[in-house]
């Protein structure tokens, strides 16, 4: 039985701000269900004696000292902006909130 419903796909797509057509939704129901089934496969392993891995890297405590370094000049910072007024990045007007 599929582990993922079409509603689940819709929901996740909504969170990711993707709009999917019917074919893509169908396909993803299958693909995402397969991924979860694979996770079940992993769950068959006995991991009771193994400490949980909290992070993929085996190193810790890498820090920068609190020292100010150079920033980009504004022109460079705004260079890739789809739209700007020379000071700000411009985005479609934000309604709601604040």
């Amino acid at each position: 039985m599929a582990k993922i419903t079409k509603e689940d796909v819709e929901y996740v797509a909504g969170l990711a701000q993707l709009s999917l057509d019917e074919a893509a939704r169908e396909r993803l129901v299958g693909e995402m269900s397969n991924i979860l089934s694979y996770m079940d496969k992993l769950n068959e392993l006995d991991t009771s004696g193994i400490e949980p891995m909290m992070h993929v890297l085996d190193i810790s405590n890498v820090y920068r000292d609190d020292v100010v370094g150079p920033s980009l000049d504004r022109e460079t910072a705004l260079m890739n902006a789809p739209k700007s007024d020379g000071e700000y990045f411009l985005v479609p007007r934000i309604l709601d909130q604040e």
Partner: protein
Amino acid sequence: MEYEVVVGMEVHVEIDTKSKVFCACSTNFHAPPNTNVCPICLGMPGVLPVLNRGMVEATVAVGLALNCTISRWSKMDRKNYFYPDLAKNYQISQYDLPLCHDGWMEINLDGTTKRIGITRAHMEEDTARNVHTIGVAESGVDFNRCGVPLLEIVTEPDIRSAQEAFEYLTRLKQLLQYLNVSDCNMEEGSLRAEANISIRPVGTEKFGVKTEVKNVASFSGVQKAIDYEIVRQRQVLEEGGTVVQETRGWDAAKGVTFSQRSKESAHDYRYFPEPDLVPVIVDEAWEKRIRESLPELPRARKQRFQDSYSLKPYDAGVLTASKAMADYFEAVVTAGAQPKPAANWIMVELQALLTEHKQELEDCKVTSASLAAMIGLIDDGTISGKIAKDVLIEMFDSGRDPKAIVTEKGLVQISDTAELEQIARDVLAANAGPVADFKAGKEKAFGFLVGQMMKATKGKGNPKIVNDILRNALSRV
């Protein structure tokens, strides 16, 4: 039905590191838009954030001051959401393993002490600032604020009144300022408070549905918003309705909260460990080093003010309410003033001037040295306490040296007995009526005659000498 309010607070405070939390850009609030930015805080793909050691140490310091347990092992996580205040569509924060957890802070209200539980204090990055004044169709985004280190402090739902919430926020701000980790400037947004508010019938355990009040510009605003929500929620329940779980804003002008996000999709942030940042391990030695470097905290300082300067608990409390004022007081004393008059001049006259001019002590032109000098002028009899009030106003306005003001305006107190005796004779001669009254036993007439003496000396008569001379002169009438 009797209801009680249940409040939990979430406070976001920007930590005063010099550079941002994951990159070397400056945190300077006043820089022109988009000048403190780099590929990391702009959220460019492929960059590598590296955590600022200063942020870790500041967070641990706050955690210790809040009696928290410091996690030996902690990590950063990604909180995923779309909003034009973060270019990379996630905020780096901490989810299930915050750096500090399970602490408490004491508040005092009406003589009783209460502990407010601290659920957690965790590290995250601030977001960009959105500007809505650019045009009709567009909003501007300034990434200077994006990546400024942000500490989120969350309480247990232990607060039971708007006043307790106010007191909690006041104490928390005081603590943060003493720790020197933030200026806590609410106007510039370096401290932001949100209240989760619900009500329940007195005697019941189950929490009611809560509303979250956000974007309140002051602590008194938070207090008023909570009081407003208590009334509003009760009314909803009494009319048979249900409280809607939602975010509400606070309209300070109208004094009401209002529903803020109607069409909001469910919060589903899909947190996962931030793969670009490695775990934070604070071992015992590091924690100990930070603990030993903690400055004197408000409670200890208040006690010391009582012990070392013989101040009353109330006065010591007022003077240590802000670190700035406590530092100022100690500087005045170090500059040679006696603690008691120093305390009084600061708490009463100087504070009145600050309040009247809506000024912060930090911006005050009266330096600790000049206030000490002014108190010295009273001590050595150069000016009277009454004249000193005028001198202080002048110092407050101009920042000038008290001695210079006194000399220039001819405010030096008249202590010359011969001169005062002459004035006394003149006053008595001109006021035969009151003199007769005094002789007839009306002590009140004496006050009037002192007033006439002060008037004749333009307030510069040394009050004690004026009194003595007047009594003497009257006895000879």
